[in-house]
């Protein structure tokens, strides 16, 4: 990971420091000089957007925690007091709540970018696996955060989701009791969720550190998917990509602010403004939008398979839909990374995107009629894409010819050889 540095300590102090803790050298190598493919497009800016939102979430979260009271009697009013009585509390609270949605919007773009450009392929498997791990941590964090305001949806989401674990044979019930801190969701649940919700983002930040470390070993993939061959293919991270990333972060802040200032509650559910009531089940329990595709998969399994009950089956498919992501680097055997050069892969990919959208839609519907059937079809395609289509397509497909290098793809053949010479 080193060797890209042009760092020359100037002066005795800097030199002295550099020999003991080369942190300036490290920063210069990784934040300024790092050679980055010059052809990466705007889809490659979302990693930086994500890092930015993570910081926003942690800062707003810490301020919220100064005022929040993790007690089932007081939690709801304490969140309301933040909105009403804390200086700028309405904005801070809305930023954190909307921020969670923006985080997932960005992470889905980031993941689908990776799936299209084959960024998960060697030598970036660990980078990808760390990404999936981040995704899992994000979901756990967001879920526990959603429980904290202790509204009706908070409470019932906590009940429904923790209940999923009860379907696991033998260890299910102990896990359930451990999660809830008792038999039912109550004050003990709220307390441990608050504790974990404060903890997980820091673990997340640590895994993001590893993620970026794993990125800086092979360097970025790029839209043509051909590895960097020479310094003609790259530009230093600073100022080229720092500027590009910052620009996109500012653009991303525009819809973000639109929601925070003009529609802070629109991404949530009105029922969460009703204080939690264990005796009153809401007619229609829906998770936040970013969980809907997986919720649809969970509900799609409404039939028994041999000795597996429908409940356990739902849990297996639900868990499987995430776990399968860990294996994508080995399921897709194609040597060609970028979807741009894979004519057979492309239609299946876009169908996968549409299917994922459909599952999102279905996750919000009452499970009845045509929706049930569609959920099953959607679930089947979700798994087929990874387990059948990717392995087969990568074997039978004839990819389009790849450019010899990034420079060639950018400049055209003649010029590229000219530049080299």
């Amino acid at each position, binding site marked *: 990971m080193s060797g890209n540095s042009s760092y020359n300590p100037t002066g005795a102090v800097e030199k002295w420091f550099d020999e003991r803790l080369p942190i300036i050298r490290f920063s210069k190598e990784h934040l300024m000089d790092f050679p980055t493919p010059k052809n990466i497009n705007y889809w490659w800016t979302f990693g930086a957007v994500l890092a930015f939102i993570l910081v926003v979430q942690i800062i707003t979260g810490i301020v919220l925690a100064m005022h929040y009271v993790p007690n089932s009697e007081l939690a709801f009013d304490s969140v309301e007091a933040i909105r009403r009585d804390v200086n700028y509390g309405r904005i801070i609270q809305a930023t954190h709540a909307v921020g969670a949605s923006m985080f997932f919007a960005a992470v*889905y773009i980031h993941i689908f970018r990776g799936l299209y450009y084959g960024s998960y392929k060697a030598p970036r498997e660990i980078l990808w696996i760390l990404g999936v791990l981040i995704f899992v941590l994000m979901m756990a964090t967001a879920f526990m955060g959603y429980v904290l305001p202790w509204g009706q949806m908070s409470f019932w989401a906590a009940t429904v989701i923790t209940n999923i674990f009860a379907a696991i044979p033998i260890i299910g019930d102990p896990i359930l009791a451990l999660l809830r801190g008792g038999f039912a969701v109550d004050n003990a649940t709220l307390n441990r969720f608050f504790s974990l919700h404060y903890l997980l983002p820091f673990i997340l930040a640590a895994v993001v550190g590893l993620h970026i470390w794993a990125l800086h070993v092979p360097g970025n993939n790029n839209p043509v998917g051909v590895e960097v061959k020479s310094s003609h293919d790259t*530009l230093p991270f600073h100022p080229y990509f720092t*500027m590009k990333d910052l620009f996109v972060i500012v653009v991303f802040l525009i819809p973000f602010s639109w929601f925070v200032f003009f*529609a802070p509650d*629109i991404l949530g559910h*009105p029922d969460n403004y009703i204080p939690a009531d264990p005796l009153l089940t809401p007619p229609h329990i*829906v998770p936040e*939008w970013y969980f809907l595709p997986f919720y649809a998969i969970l509900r799609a399994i409404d039939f028994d398979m041999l000795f597996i009950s429908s409940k356990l089956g739902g849990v297996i498919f639900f868990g499987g839909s995430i776990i399968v992501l860990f294996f994508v680097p080995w399921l897709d055997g194609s040597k060609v990374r970028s979807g741009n050069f894979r004519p057979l892969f492309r239609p299946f990919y876009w169908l996968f995107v549409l299917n994922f959208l459909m599952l999102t839609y279905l*996750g*919000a519907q009452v499970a009845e009629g045509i929706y049930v059937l569609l959920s099953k079809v959607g679930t089947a395609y979700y798994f087929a894409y990874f387990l059948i289509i990717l392995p087969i397509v990568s074997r039978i497909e004839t990819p389009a010819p790849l450019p010899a290098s990034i420079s060639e793809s950018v400049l055209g053949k003649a010029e590229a050889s000219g530049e080299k010479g």
Partner: protein
Amino acid sequence: MVMNKSRNVFKSLVLAAVMGLTGGLTGLAQAKVVGLEAELQKWSFAGVFGTYDVNQLQRGFQIFQQSCASCHSANLMSFRNLSEEGGPQFSEDQVKALAAEYTIYDPELEDGERQAVPADRWPAPFQTELDARAANSGALPPDFSVLAKARGISQKFPYWAFNYFTGYQEGGPDYIYNLLVNYGEPPADVELPDGQAWNNYLGRGLAMAPPLGDGFISYDGEGVPETLEQYAADVAAFMMWMAEPHLVSRKEMGFRVLTFLFLLAGMMYLVKRKIWANVKH
């Protein structure tokens, strides 16, 4: 190359549509099967430029105080809020005088009670939930503090999808308005339990008798009609303020933030283009 570009544009469009749609799906959640379609009102506080109408909030407060407050609590509202910027903006003297009409019960005081001051919360009409239920045929009148945000109306596709762009956040007041103006006779085949009143909007009975009707409350001054519809709109607006007291300052700040972001984004773009000017990529 040309082909490549147009394909990229197409992909960007698809992905943008994808993200837009996914973001839009939560709205689907609240499907109401029975009852009437909600009639949407024109609220002064709707939209990007919307602000509360101080006169309407004052009238709404009057209705709240003279009707609803005899059953519904408003635990998170303090008297002082009534004189704050962005709200009904009664004068501080008016609020002081208003508070003095109310009594705060507090077992730690010598006599167990005292006159309210502006810093006090709005006193609840019933001391306990049991009392409240006993007076309302077993039902609990919900607290008003955030009630206007705890209700919503259902909209058909694609109308709810537009909300993400118009910022429609008035589902609560629209619900309350439609609830209040749509009391009626139950259908012939429905027998309501005692203490329930039929509501056409909900398509079911509820344990709140129609609290308002034409001419029930007289407004000071001329010009504002004393009709059920007017009352309903006024009290719903007041409830929205109670649930979202900082709406006006929030939007004002939003304008400043968005203007800044647009300018900054434009400048960033120019700088970025300048830096990249000599690079083919």
